[in-house]
Structure formats: structure tokens, C-alpha cells
């Protein structure tokens, strides 16, 4: 999902103060919601606030607030970004508060090209510019102190929220310097600390967001409580493209606590004093639907159409040499079809939006990965101007791509504009599961050959499925090619002189599709890494050794392979029924190699024994955060690979809650060891999706090693008979 490679504009970032100028009076400033207060935070006071750029605010009493352009949804980004800013600003992490950024172009992520948290881009896009933002602020504070003391700036030092002049043993706090710093020019040039001087970057401090998450005080979107607020339950037509034909208004309004019933052409909301009234009211309303043109569609119909579409050539993503000819010449060849299901995101916090829409403006309290889109959705729904709509972003109870879409916020706004009071609109779990925008189903045809001495002789990969890019970011399409649909297929770690990769777009009418953790690579790396494994077994080669041979030109690939080989004890004797599988990939500018050991019982039940993952994401900001993301990302991907698929019958999604869209649980989770093998000189890589990408292929390859069965279709568990969905 890397859509734009805009050069990061340092000037734009350094100059991007919200109201222009270096500082302004607090009385003229509307504070956001400080989500997480520093343990040492001073209260704010009237006076001149130092705001050198859009990311830093320092009050006269020394309260340092860092403004987060990324949403915190568990990935630890509030901590990682704060480390980048604080490292150069010269403050300790326990001296800062963090605050969610408002919707404002000052907070555009240049990899994404918009205000967005996604695509594992946050740290990559912030690594240099946010350190520069911190350094520029520090230089202005130092310049202010030097001017006050009449000494050279070079004779001053900044650390722990103070500027020191060792020569005269004087010091001033950042708060004391705030007003004077506003009179300093924004530096035209900043130089960053060498890595050897880092005191924060590369360490694992306590996360900034976790204390509040141990005592119930953390505020997720669903926790918004606005004076006078009512609470509503939404139900949309269970079949995409259908519409509401009737409901029992009197019965709904007769339920104690119900205050309103409001409708859209394709959805209904019952609003009450509390969620229980809204839920009971919806039962009483008993909405009736015309299911529309998709009323009889099943997943089988969608797959059959996709299968047919896949028989035709697609848009060419990569063409090197002559794949067809090389396949004809191959000593061994394999022709296979791989299939990946529709997937729900199923974050534990269901979709919810709280809005207060007034004639002159609106407030929106929501957790979103795209605050700018959220604001535009509300503008489109209400006719209000975007500048009169305030989006108060919140902690997100799991994103995984779901909150990259803002349609649910637009839907909520179309309901909320029909009432005068603030209203919190919640999707039940059943609504969240069945009305999700799903990860596309993919139907992949792949043919690969090997020469006599084990090199690849021809590689033809044709993927067929929905294009998320075409709907969500049409500017990202490249003459009919969706770069996401082939990410991880077009570029592989391996030497492939004769390679053809194609994309056939086939849109299912009954389903809307969306990004899902790991995006293109989660799809394609499963196919590629399974196929490499098939080639290894077919030709009697060790799967890890074959990868080393094929990736011999990639030193960082060899490094992670060697590390995981050593750590996992690859090749050691295993008990009967056990098997080890490996997956190698380069995604989001990060290399990783993962070995998974699995045990399969006689009845087909699968036990995950142990996982080792070696990771090289270039320079490291927050090591424990990386380990946590790999562990969690693997569990997320393994859950999907074992259990998950969304299916349709009569146009309706059949899975409704966690009893039939199964989650891995603690008793099933394997130990996961993560081995960091950084490359400080390389480009910095993303991490939030890397573990998820490795999960399915490592598991498929381990299951083959354990059972001799090649599983080319996700999910796996029911195919071995040990798990009834």
C-alpha cells in the first residue's frame, strides 16, 4: 500500500504551524483533548505558548505536548514518534504529554500522501522529518537562552527540558524560555545527532499509552461521553445494494428508553437513552428490506466468476525474459491454484461514531486512521464546510485496516444530522462483522519451473481479485494495474530471469473490499513462499537451503535466513507429527525470515509449537515495540490462516460473531521468539504488518512438512479435519 513516494518536505514540516507564526496566545487557542498526560506534566497557564511547528507545544509552565499525526491503535506509535521528537528536542519521555492531531493538512504522511496511519509507513515517514522538527525547536530554545545570557549558542547545552550554560552554571527551563523562543526564527538548516549520541532511540522505554489502559481510564472512541448525548444502534440492509422498505416505528418508540428512530435509504438507527434501549428498540422496529440485485449471490458464485476471469490474460505487472518458454524448458514444473478468502477485520472495538451536528458546525468523536477523510465524509453528509467540523481522534481498539475507511463515519453523520442532540452510534458485533468491508478474495494461478541444478526456470503468477486501490485511491492505479494486488508477487527476494506477473481485476458486486493488515504482501507472499516450498520438495532440496541459493544476491535476506536457521535449530530431529516451515519476505522495506514448528495430531488437530522470526528493519527506534508487533502480527496472521473466511449465502454474510468467525485464544498461542538483526545503514523499514505477512506461508509449509499435505487454500484447520468451523 505504498502509494506515493513524495520526497519528504522538511521545509513543509518545519514551517507547518497550525496558525502560522512561531507562537500565539493561549487564550486564542482551542486545546485539543490531551489523551495521555505526562506523569510530570505541569498545568497550562495563560501566556505565550511556544509552538515552533505542528508537532510541539511548550507552555510557560513547561508543559511539553507532542501532537500525534498518527492514530494509536496498539502499534505503539505514540511512543515511537514521541521518541523521535524527544530525542532531538531534548526532553525525557516522562516530561511529555501526547495529543491526537486534528484533521489538518499539516499532518499529511508523505508516503501515504494524506493524513493517514497505515501501510506500515509511520516510522518510515517520520524517521528524519520528526527528528528535524524536534531539533529545530531545540535550536530555537537554545538561541533564546543564549540571547538572554549574551553567550554563544554553541556554549549552551539542552537536555531534560532545560537549556544549560555550563560556563556560568546557569540554566533555564523550556517553559521559562517558551515566550523568548517564539521570537527566534525557524532555523533554515538543522543537523541531527549521530546515532552514537542517541539516548532514547534504540532503547525500550515504557510505552506512553499503556498505564491508562490498565485502569479503565483510556478513552477509545466508543467511550466518548458528551453532555446530553443519546446512544443509537445502527442496522444496515444485510445485503449490499438493498434498501429499507418498512419498520414498526410505534413498537420501537414504545420500548422504554427509546427516543427516536431515524432512517436512511439502506439503513435504520434506533436511538435511546442507553445502548440497551437502542438494541431492544431495534428488535421491536423489525426492519423490512428489499434485498436488491445481490439477493441470491453466494461465495461460490463469486469464486466461479473469478475462476473464469482468471483464464484470461491480465494487466502485466512484470515481464522479464520469457516465462512461458522457460517453463517449457524446465526440468521440473508445478502448476497450481492458490485461493485466499474474504476476511473481516474484527477489531475488538466495533465501529462507532459520536457526533454533534449543528447548523453552524459539527464535532465528531471517533477513532480513525484517516482524520481528513473522516472530516470530508461529515462535510459531504451535512453540507457543512470542513473547517467547521472538528474531528477529535481517539485511541482505536484495533485497526488492522478497518479504520482506513471512513464510510461508517459518513453513514453516522447522515443519521446524526436528523437529530439536534449529540449521539453516539454503535455497530453491534454482528453489524461490524457482516457490514465490514472485506479483504478481497484472491484466486491465484501460478506456474513455476526449476532447472536441473535447482535454479528457477520460468515463473508465471496471475492473480485475480478485487482492486482495493481502484475504489479507495483511484489515483494509485497504474494503467489498470493495481500495485497492491501484485505487491509481494512482482518483486520477490529471488532471482527470476523469466518472470511474468499479471493482475486480472474482477469485482464482486455483493461485497465491498478494503485494506487488511499486511495488504498485498499478506496475499502474495503466501502464494510465492508456498510455491518456493513446493519447488524445494519437488526437487528434493531443503527449503531453507533453496531460499539461500535463490536469494544469494541479497545479503540481508541471507542474514535473516542464517539467523532464523540458527535460532530455530532448523533441520533438527522432530517428534512424529511435527514439522517446521519457513517463510522469507521483504515487505514495507523490512526483511524477515520466520520458522514455525507445528504438531498435527492423528485426528487432524493442529498445535502451534514454536515460532522464531528474524527481522531486519534497518535502523531500530523502539526494539520492544518491534518485538511486540512481530509477535502480535504473527498471531493475527496465524488466526486467519487457521480459521478465518467470510462467506456469503443469499447475499448475506454468514459469519456474525466470534463463535463462527473464530479467534485464536491464549491456550492455542505458541511461544514466539523475535530476533532483531538490524542494519543501521539501511533505509528504515515498517513493522506493523511484517509478522502477519509471514504467518500463512510459514504455517502452510510447516503443515506440509508435518503431514505431506500441501494446503493451497486458506483457512487450513478445517481441511485437516481437526477443527469444525
Amino acid at each position, binding site marked *: 500500500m505504498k502509494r506515493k513516494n513524495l520526497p519528504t518536505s522538511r521545509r513543509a514540516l518545519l514551517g507547518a504551524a497550525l496558525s502560522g507564526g512561531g507562537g500565539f496566545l493561549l487564550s486564542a487557542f482551542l486545546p485539543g483533548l490531551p489523551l495521555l498526560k505526562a506523569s510530570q506534566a505541569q498545568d497550562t497557564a495563560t501566556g505565550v505558548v511556544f509552538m515552533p511547528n505542528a508537532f510541539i507545544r511548550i507552555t510557560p509552565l513547561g508543559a511539553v505536548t507532542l501532537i500525534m499525526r498518527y492514530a494509536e491503535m496498539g502499534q505503539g506509535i505514540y511512543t515511537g514518534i514521541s521518541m523521535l521528537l524527544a530525542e532531538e528536542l531534548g526532553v525525557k519521555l516522562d516530561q511529555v504529554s501526547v495529543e491526537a492531531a486534528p484533521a489538518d493538512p499539516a499532518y499529511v504522511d508523505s508516503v501515504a500522501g494524506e493524513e493517514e496511519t497505515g501501510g506500515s509507513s509511520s516510522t518510515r515517514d517520520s524517521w528524519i522529518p520528526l527528528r528535524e522538527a524536534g531539533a529545530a525547536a531545540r535550536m530555537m530554545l537554545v538561541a533564546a537562552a543564549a540571547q538572554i545570557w549574551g553567550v554563544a549558542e554553541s556554549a549552551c547545552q539542552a537536555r531534560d527540558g532545560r537549556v544549560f550554560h555550563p560556563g556560568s552554571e546557569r540554566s533555564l527551563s523550556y517553559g521559562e524560555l517558551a515566550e523568548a523562543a517564539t521570537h527566534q526564527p525557524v532555523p533554515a538548516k538543522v543537523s541531527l545527532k549521530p546515532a552514537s549520541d542517541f539516548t532514547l532511540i534504540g532503547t525500550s522505554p515504557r510505552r506512553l*499509552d499503556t498505564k491508562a489502559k490498565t485502569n479503565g481510564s483510556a478513552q477509545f472512541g466508543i467511550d466518548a461521553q458528551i453532555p446530553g448525548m443519546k446512544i443509537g444502534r445502527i442496522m444496515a440492509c444485510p445485503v449490499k445494494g438493498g434498501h429499507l422498505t418498512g419498520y414498526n416505528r410505534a413498537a420501537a418508540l414504545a420500548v422504554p428508553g427509546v427516543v427516536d428512530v431515524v432512517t436512511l435509504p439502506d439503513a435504520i438507527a434506533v436511538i435511546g*437513552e442507553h445502548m440497551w434501549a437502542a438494541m431492544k428498540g431495534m428488535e421491536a422496529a423489525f426492519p423490512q428490506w428489499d434485498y436488491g440485485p445481490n439477493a441470491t449471490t453466494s461465495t461460490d458464485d463469486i469464486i466461479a466468476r473469478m475462476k473464469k476471469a482468471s483464464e484470461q490474460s491480465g494487466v502485466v505487472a512484470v515481464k522479464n525474459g520469457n516465462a512461458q518458454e522457460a517453463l517449457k524448458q524446465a526440468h521440473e514444473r508445478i502448476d497450481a491454484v492458490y485461493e485466499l478468502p474474504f476476511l473481516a477485520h474484527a477489531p*475488538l*472495538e466495533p465501529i462507532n461514531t459520536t457526533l454533534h451536528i449543528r447548523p453552524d458546525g459539527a464535532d465528531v468523536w471517533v477513532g480513525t486512521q484517516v482524520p481528513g477523510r473522516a472530516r470530508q465524509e461529515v462535510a459531504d453528509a451535512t453540507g457543512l464546510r470542513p473547517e467547521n467540523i472538528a474531528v477529535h481522534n481517539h485511541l482505536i481498539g484495533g485497526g488492522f485496516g478497518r479504520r482506513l475507511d471512513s464510510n461508517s463515519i459518513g453513514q453516522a453523520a447522515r443519521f446524526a444530522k436528523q437529530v439536534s442532540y449529540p449521539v453516539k452510534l454503535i455497530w453491534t*458485533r454482528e453489524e461490524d462483522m457482516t457490514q465490514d468491508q472485506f479483504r478481497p478474495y484472491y484466486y491465484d494461478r501460478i506456474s513455476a519451473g526449476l532447472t536441473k541444478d535447482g535454479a528457477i526456470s520460468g515463473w508465471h503468477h496471475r492473480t485475480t481479485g478485487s482492486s482495493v486501490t481502484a475504489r479507495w485511491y483511484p489515483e494509485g492505479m497504474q494503467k489498470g494495474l493495481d500495485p497492491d494486488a501484485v505487491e509481494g508477487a512482482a518483486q520477490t527476494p529471488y532471482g527470476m530471469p523469466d518472470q511474468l506477473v499479471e493482475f486480472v481485476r474482477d469485482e464482486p458486486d455483493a461485497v465491498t473490499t478494503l485494506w487488511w493488515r499486511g495488504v498485498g504482501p499478506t496475499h502474495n507472499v503466501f502464494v510465492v513462499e508456498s510455491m518456493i516450498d513446493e519447488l524445494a520438495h519437488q526437487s528434493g532440496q531443503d527449503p531453507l537451503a533453496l531460499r539461500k541459493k535463490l536469494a544469494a544476491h541479497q545479503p540481508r535476506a541471507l542474514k535473516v535466513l542464517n539467523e532464523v536457521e540458527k535460532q530455530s535449530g532448523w533441520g533438527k530431529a522432530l517428534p512424529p507429527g511435527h514439522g517446521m516451515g519457513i517463510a522469507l519476505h521483504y515487505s514495507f522495506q523490512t526483511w524477515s525470515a520466520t520458522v514455525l514448528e507445528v504438531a498435527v495430531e492423528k485426528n487432524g488437530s493442529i498445535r502451534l509449537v514454536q515460532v522464531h522470526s528474524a527481522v531486519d528493519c534497518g535502523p531500530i527506534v523502539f526494539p520492544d515495540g518491534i518485538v511486540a508487533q512481530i509477535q502480535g502480527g*504473527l498471531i*493475527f496472521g496465524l488466526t486467519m490462516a487457521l480459521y478465518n473466511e467470510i462467506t456469503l449465502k443469499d447475499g448475506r454474510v454468514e459469519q456474525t*460473531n466470534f463463535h463462527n468467525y473464530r479467534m485464536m485464544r491464549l491456550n492455542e498461542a505458541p511461544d514466539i521468539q523475535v530476533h532483531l538483526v538490524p542494519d543501521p545503514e539501511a533505509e528504515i523499514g515498517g513493522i506493523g504488518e511484517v509478522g502477519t505477512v509471514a504467518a500463512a506461508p510459514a504455517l502452510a509449509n510447516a503443515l506440509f512438512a508435518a503431514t505431506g499435505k500441501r494446503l493451497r487454500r486458506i483457512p487450513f484447520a478445517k481441511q485437516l479435519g481437526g477443527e469444525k468451523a
Partner: protein
Amino acid sequence: MRFDLKVNNVLREVDVPPDMPVLWVLRDILGLTGTKYGCGVAQCGACTVHLDGQPVRACLLTVAAAAGHDILTIEAIEHTETGAKVQQAWLDEEVIQCGYCQSGQIMAATALLQQIPQPTDADIDEAMAGNICRCGTYVRIRKAIHKAASHEA
């Protein structure tokens, strides 16, 4: 109907339908939003509270059934010796990612340690399998429970 609920050692009178789940009473009537809605059908454990010291799913516990009993929520768990240790272990092991399930996880783990101060891995499996963590923090939850248990000694 009026009910007297004892929540976190404070008596609260609420006027709600008798079949209303305690989850929504806590969140929407009493403003205690630390207890989370995840599934509504006792599949995920995000709404776990203690009823007379036992972990229960607030999404299926009606207010009528809870009246007259002690309800303890995440907001007050720090006032129990075991709860405070569990919270600290959660921080020390950096268990938490998005955090949405963690109120329920901490309530379940506290109940486990109150009943079995030195749980085995099998005890942890049994006590915690009802609590889904979508971020996949299970490896660290297990470690943190063992850590909190070692402080119990």
C-alpha cells in the same frame, strides 16, 4: 425499575429495565467505560467484571441478577492487592497493544490469581481462554501472570 447496585463499594441506585445487562448500566448509566463491549454474547471477555469476587461477563449479567451483589470493575481493581500486582506486571511486561480487551484480561487474571496464587500454564490456559485479544498479546499475558504470581509469594 429501581435497583440498588453496589459498584466498586459504592451503592448506586439505577432506574433501568430489569433485563438490562450490567455492561450497559456501567457504561451508559454510571459512566464507567473501562468495561468494554466486544461481542455481547460472552464470546470475547472484554466486559469481564467481578461479581462477589467471581469473574463474570457483564454483557449477559442482568441488572436484576446483579442487584444485591458486589460488582467490581477495572476502575477499582487497583484497590485490591492482587489487582494492583496484575496491573504492574502488565506494565512491566509491556503486555498491552490497543488495550481494548485488557480491562477484561486484567479482571480475568486477577480472579485467577485470587483463586490460584501460583497458577500453572494449564491453569492460565483454562482461566484466560475466554478472553480474546485481537492484537495477539497472549505470549506476554502468560508471562505477566507468572510474574504477578511470583510477587504473590
